[in-house]
């Protein structure tokens, strides 16, 4: 490839709070009647004043900490001034030079279990705007969203391909959900991306002379499409020996196709200045420490612990820690279990069977009938050869469907493993006797006998250990007929 991508991201995340950022209106506006969650403050009426929501600030600081940022102990809000109908005060309360968090970093996974560090420039707090709803003849305004708290994460231009961007986006979403800063539900617009992208010749290290901004990208899949589209568009221009225009581009639909919205030269001067209605926000080391303690174990920390303490491999650890709910289910199951082999097996059965069944039936983890400890019981029955692996799959389906105890189901359905060697031996004799041709083939093909294992297992209704059957058949054949 002749050109290399240079990308920086800005991500807006709606913080999960009861009330809006600067007033007491209900912040949960999804599906609410237009302009039903409004008050003098979020409508920008004359004389109304903002009072900052402490909980929202704490969410911003918590995310800053989770992203490894330093915290400005002395911070403040600033006004970003511009006119737009859905911006009721004609300024957005944001943070200019003293964001709550700055200089952090996040590790993302690349293929081949490689990792890359993405630098976080800053994490700051601001308020959302209202919503303009355009029709052909008029524009309607809904201020329910006005003043909803937003946490904005800004990265350094550290991404050099689309996979890194997607990996970061997923990782950030995971962290945000883990620590409860937001539900990050993209369909509800709770997480939105802004892309800063340019291309440089492969091998060059300095930043390109231009930057294209694409705003309001509402999902990770559209983000991917936009990057591909922009790559082609910018490459075409560069191929002609020209430099793409420094501009802001928008999206008309979900196809990823961008169009020119505003050329930088006519960009707004936002006339930032400190918000005089809100005194500076001051935190102590102790308060920050207390906030840090509320984070709990972060996904990367959990993953490392699963690998180190339980001997789970990286891929399984990644899947088990993908969501906090999954990890919690797994941890509830293995609580008090010492045997690492059992722990790993529980992880595999959980991810391989339970989660697969869950996906197939579109049910949620919180609605599961199978209980964590029941899965452990099943794994232990398997390990102590009380049940065969094929039977266990049948049992887990039953457990998933009804929540039945594995012991009960096994007993009721006669799935106990046949551990009586003489009983197995009898079946082996019968199978050998009724398949003389296979026995004869053994001369040419030593593996021909494998067919007999299947036959014997069938005869035993799968309730025997296949290895044991294998051993007995092989012993019977090599010892000749007697």
């Amino acid at each position, binding site marked *: 490839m002749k050109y290399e991508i240079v990308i920086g991201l800005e991500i807006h995340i709606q913080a999960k709070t009861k009330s809006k950022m600067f007033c007491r209106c209900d912040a949960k506006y999804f599906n609410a009647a237009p302009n039903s969650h409004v008050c003098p403050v979020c409508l920008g009426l004359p*004389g109304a*004043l903002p*009072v900052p929501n402490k909980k929202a600030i704490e969410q911003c600081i918590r995310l800053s900490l989770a992203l490894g940022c330093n915290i400005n102990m002395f911070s403040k809000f600033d006004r970003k001034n511009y006119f737009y109908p859905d911006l*009721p*005060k004609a*300024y957005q309360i944001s943070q200019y030079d003293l964001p709550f968090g700055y200089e952090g970093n996040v590790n993302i996974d690349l293929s081949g279990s490689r990792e890359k560090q993405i630098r976080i420039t800053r994490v700051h707090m601001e308020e959302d705007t209202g919503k303009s709803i355009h029709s052909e003849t008029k524009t309607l305004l809904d201020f329910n969203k006005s003043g909803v708290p937003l946490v904005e994460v800004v990265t350094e231009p550290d991404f050099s391909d689309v996979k890194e961007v997607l990996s970061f986006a997923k990782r950030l979403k995971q962290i945000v959900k883990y620590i409860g800063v937001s539900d990050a539900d993209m369909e509800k617009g709770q997480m939105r991306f802004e892309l800063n992208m340019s291309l440089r010749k492969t091998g060059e290290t300095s930043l390109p002379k231009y930057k294209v901004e694409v705003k309001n990208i509402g999902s990770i899949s559209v983000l991917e499409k936009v990057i591909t589209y922009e790559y082609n568009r910018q490459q075409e221009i560069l191929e002609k020996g020209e430099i793409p225009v420094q501009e802001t581009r928008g999206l008309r639909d979900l196809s990823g196709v961008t169009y020119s919205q505003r050329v930088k030269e006519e960009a707004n001067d936002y*006339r930032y*200045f400190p918000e005089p*209605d809100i005194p500076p926000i001051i935190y102590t080391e102790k308060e920050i420490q207390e906030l840090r303690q509320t984070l709990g174990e972060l996904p990367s920390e959990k993953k490392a612990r699963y690998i180190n303490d339980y001997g789970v491999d990286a891929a399984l650890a990644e899947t088990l820690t993908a969501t906090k709910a999954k990890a919690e289910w797994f941890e509830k199951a293995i609580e008090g279990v010492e045997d690492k082999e059992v722990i790993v097996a529980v992880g595999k059965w959980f991810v391989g069977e339970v989660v697969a069944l869950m996906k197939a039936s579109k049910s949620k983890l919180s609605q599961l009938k199978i209980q964590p400890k029941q899965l452990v019981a099943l794994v232990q029955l398997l390990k102590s050869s009380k049940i065969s692996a094929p039977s266990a799959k049948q049992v887990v389906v039953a457990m998933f469907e009804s929540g039945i105890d594995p012991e009960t189901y096994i007993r009721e359905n006669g799935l106990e493993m046949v551990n009586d060697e003489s009983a197995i031996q009898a079946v082996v004799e019968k199978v050998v006797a009724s398949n003389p041709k296979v026995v004869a083939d053994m001369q040419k093909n030593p593996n021909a006998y494998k067919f007999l294992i299947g036959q014997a297992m069938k005869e035993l209704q799968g309730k025997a250990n296949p290895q044991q059957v294998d051993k007995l058949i092989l012993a019977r054949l090599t010892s000749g007929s007697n």
Partner: protein
Amino acid sequence: MNTKYQTIESLHKELIARSFTAVELLNSYLENVDARESELNCFVSQTREQALEAATKVDSMIESGREISLVGGIPAALKDNFNWIGTKTTASSKILDNYVSPYNATVTQRLLDANAVFVGKTNMDAFAHGSSTETSDYGVTANPYNTQRVSGGSSGGSAAAVAANMSVYAIGSETAGSVRGPAAWCGLYGFAPTYGRNSRYGVVAMGSSLDRPGVLANCVEDCALVTDIIAGKDSHDATTIPVEKVEYRKALSADHTGLKIGIPKQFLDERIDPQVSARVREMLAEYEKLGATLVDIDLLDPKYAVAVYTIVCRSEVSSNLARIDGIRYGHVSEKKAESVLDQIAYNRGEGFGNEAKQRSMTGAYALSAGYYDAYYKKAQKVRTLIIQDFANAFKQVDVIIGPTMPTVAPEQGVTKNNPLFGELADMLTESSALAGLPCISVPVGVNNENLPIGMQIFGPQFAEQLVLDTAYIYQTRIAK
């Protein structure tokens, strides 16, 4: 009924004693409104219906033996930049001509809760931009002492209403000298406590870091008493001082021995009208006779305060007024606009008066990229120096006294061709406003043309009691 110079407390006692009813009291003040309003133009809107309802309620409360607050049933006036549900809140600008507020300012709410009776919303300089009410879109408020003169501003309507006995007291607001100035020119007491003591919630913002509601009244007791009701922490204003309740009236004392009074020489130099400075010197001599020590002090020249105030305030104004865009409320232009931004420009261009436009533009300029450091940031640095300057002064003295305004009330028309009239007239009040100091203007008599002279007293932040007490010494032992 004689309404001349009755204090709130004496009227309250008579209401309780049923010497007259609240409705009768209201009517006697409304007679004064009828008699002089056409000549003075104190009100943007009169609220007789609401006043009658409130007074009737107070009467029934008294009848049923219920306790009423000191301001209950006492006729008052509210500056037109205070939101009051169901009334027009225009801030004397035509751009808000039809704006009816859906919510109450905290000050309004606290007074309504105390059964205040508001006779009307008073005229002011549009958006409080000025010291004359000449920038009002509803005409100038004439000075009750001489109707050829201005009443001062921006709370000129409030001052004239009290001076003409149309209300017992009035609520005003001050950004530099908008309470003190008109009080001085209309012969009243005008008190503004420390910045953050009175909530700004629901007061149409001018300069957010400077604005503070205040009281205009005929005596110190009334200023203290009304402040006791309106002051205190407000969960709707993040800049309020975290003290729930104040009680200045009960603690009022004219018995301060060894009071050290600072006299800044910059406040009494050749820039001040000689009659004004002479009168203030006489009053200072009276304090001295009562045992106070007069200390000459050196403060930063007021010219710095004028510059800093002009930049800081106009910058904040440019941002605060931007919300009035005609989209959700305010004037809507009939002109056909090509774009929504053009529509906003037409709405604002037609709706705002010249003063608001000029202040918005200069403020936006001071905040612009490339100019911010040279203007706004530098102004904030000098503001810090002014605050330090006062802190140093208050190491030597308890309070500082000087003239409130450099002159007496000027002739109407004074602001024509004088685009900085407001800021220059307020030159002696801007430094204390920038430092958020509690201050009061007291009426110290008249000049040879029978025009009132005001003398201001200010103290360190949170020293409201000392400032009020110093004024109380004047009222009870000097003015008598």
